[in-house]
């Protein structure tokens, strides 16, 4: 068991190291360098020299990669060209905002999705199931920027209940942020709920058809108890990986949703940095996203180990 856990951690560390290498190499492969792509037609004379010196571009690529990784490991992501500030000064309050948005969406969506999934699975092919599954299909097929735009139109432009876009600064208090995250949370949750619910439903249907559930029924165990004691715990194991994947999806979804709602999180920071060709910032945010992605998957793996004794045996 400890070796298994260690191995999972090892994999995670290797993945992050690999991602960092790919990201660094990708930036190196761009035409020009960090300074010329940012300065554009101002990339000449003393301005270019100052930038090259400040970014340390006169050193060989391997040295710079080493420095970047060592810095990132200590939370120092270099210097943003556009904002003229160290990247880590800008990242953490936005990280908090994204975590707030994603966290609330996940906390609302996951329990609700599990509940709805079970309800649909247990009442398979009945009106409850049909309407829930239909709604889920709809939520999955409509892109989140369309949902977001529709919500803005109805709730911000027509009814004016919520702000259309966030206009408080990134460092505003959580209380200040709350009215601004209502619509984004709805958009993110809708997709989360749809994905998780469908998986839980499928899983519940599988378990309901299994021999041990049939056995329990034949023994006269009340249906409620069967569901609570046998169906739900067993249905959760395959659902767990989907939940992890969905949370990882949340990272991509959050970029789109933050952009539409002008929410001051990591997503808008990244998009802005791409527009500005502020490569140190792009690298930093991309690295943070990949670390979160890997961490969520690692957690799911570990949780599965805890829930399912079969996985702890050799060969898994």
């Amino acid at each position, binding site marked *: 068991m400890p070796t298994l856990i260690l191995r999972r951690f090892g994999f995670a560390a290797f993945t992050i190291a690999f991602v960092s290498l790919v990201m660094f190499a990708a930036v190196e492969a761009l035409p020009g360098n960090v300074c010329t*792509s940012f300065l554009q037609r101002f990339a000449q004379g003393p301005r270019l020299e100052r930038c090259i010196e400040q970014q340390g571009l006169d050193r060989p690529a391997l040295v710079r990669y080493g420095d970047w990784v060592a810095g990132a490991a200590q939370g120092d992501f270099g210097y943003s060209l556009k904002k003229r500030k160290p990247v880590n000064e800008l990242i953490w309050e936005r990280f908090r905002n994204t975590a707030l948005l994603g966290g609330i969406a996940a906390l609302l969506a996951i329990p609700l999705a599990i509940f709805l999934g079970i309800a649909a699975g247990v009442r398979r092919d009945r009106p409850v199931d049909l309407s829930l599954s239909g709604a889920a299909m709809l939520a999955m097929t409509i892109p989140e920027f369309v949902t977001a735009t529709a919500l803005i139109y109805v709730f911000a*432009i027509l009814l004016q209940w919520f702000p259309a876009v966030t206009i408080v600064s990134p460092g505003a208090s959580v209380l200040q942020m709350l009215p601004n995250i209502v619509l984004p949370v709805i958009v993110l949750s809708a997709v989360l709920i749809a994905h998780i619910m469908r998986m839980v439903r499928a899983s519940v249907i599988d378990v309901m058809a299994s021999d041990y559930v049939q056995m329990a029924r034949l023994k006269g165990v009340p249906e409620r108890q069967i569901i609570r004691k046998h169906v739900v715990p067993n249905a959760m194991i395959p659902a767990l990986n989907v939940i992890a994947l969905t949370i990882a999806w949340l990272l991509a979804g959050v970029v789109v949703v933050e952009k539409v709602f002008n929410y001051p999180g990591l997503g808008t920071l990244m998009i802005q940095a791409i527009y500005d060709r502020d490569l140190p910032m792009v690298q930093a945010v991309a690295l943070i996203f990949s670390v979160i992605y890997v961490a969520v998957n690692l957690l799911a793996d570990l949780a599965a180990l805890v829930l399912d004794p079969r996985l702890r045996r050799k060969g898994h």
Partner: protein
Amino acid sequence: MKKSLLLSAALVMAGTAVSAETLRIPHELGYGGSESIDPISPQRFYEAIQNVYSRLVRQGEDGRPSPDLALSWEATPDAKEWTFKLREGVTFHNGNAFTAEDVAFSLMRTQSETIDSPTKGVMEIIDHVEVVDPMTAKVVLKQTHADFPLLVMDYRIKMLDAETCGNELDALCESGVGTGPFQLVDYDPLGTTTLKRFDNYYNGPAGTENMELIAIADQDARVAALQAGQIDFIYALSAEQTPLFANNPNFTVQSVPTGRWVGLVMNTQTAPFDDPRVRKAIRMTADRDALGKLVYGKDGFITSCDHPVWSGDQYRADIDCPRDIEGAKALLAEAGYADGLTVELFVSDISEGAVKMAEVLQNQAKDAGITIELIQAPSDGYWGDVWMKEAFFATGWSQRPADQILNEAYRSTAAWNETGWNSSEFDAQLDAARGELDFDARKAVYGEMQKTLWETGGSFIPVHLNTVRAFSSKLSGIQPVEDFSIRYEDVVKSGSGS
């Protein structure tokens, strides 16, 4: 953190108190929150400095300099010494009187090496400023410049209070104390910056009591915010966004000409473009009106004849440049390309419409037997690898006054002389214009230069772009002038609620 909590509290209150008396303007967050309230900072907070400070001279309705803090000005016959008579009784927001000392301070600090202001290059023409008396400042130039008032009309050359800034020429001055129609209350470039009207403004109190500059970096988000009534005004709508407001009685849409242009550049030193007949032939094949409509939409442009001086500039020459396929063919035949000519054009998505413009010209030039092969270059590294490196390529320029654009793009020694324009005669005309104190004579020289560019130049500048803005119909007093010249103090917001 504590500061931001206080700000948040202030914002909550500001949010609930939004009324007809608050004008809410989006702040484009061009420097991502590092904006400085110092007008000459490389990261100037444009929307704030526009309202907090005043200039010596500002743009009048005819495009010519009109009084702001200076009431009148005159030059010595050699146009090297300029004397500005200042407006009496002007005070800064902190109560200090505005004097010639402040003029000297505000002008000289633009030259600071440490501040490294974008205005430095232009303002280096100033040798020193003499304080003749408290209400008279004499600016002594290193060289002749008959249009010096145009230079101090720049939107960044604002008058600061020397005392508040500690008379320190080499440091940014971020006190935010000016003489403008609005004074700074709360500074938060990432969130909402709050201004309130300055009751002692020399031209009378502004039309609205408060002004909020709300940071929204993304244009789509600004559109949504205007629709939802979170802001009252929006700059630079795209052709796709304009219809959202155009037929809605709640909004007013204004389309105004600007000096921005996107163009295609032929290097006049490289074959086949070293032959002026070839350059002119290519430029003559263009149907500029059709091109403008295709690329920028019906109301998106004003046609130009390859002269970079825009329609709102007092020195814009009146040139006619209809499409002339026969003329182009004749010129090509003369230049030895009777059987047609094939050239490569490097384009990239670097400026609005650049690629589309190249495609339209490609089609129009076909009729004269010119084959333009488009080469799509990556926008990454474009300005280093393609621009001014290839023989025929796309470019884009922001608005500049005649003297500035002609000097920056066509003086033989200019760093951004992208056409490789090397004419001692043209350089002499540039100098002559600066030395000519008589307006009409000066205008004639600028006109000559523009005609030269149409006849023989290397730039293809089919149009100057318009900018489209939309605002709440509750606002009145926004003149159809380019963004830098809007006077927010004249804006009145009617009706209640928002």
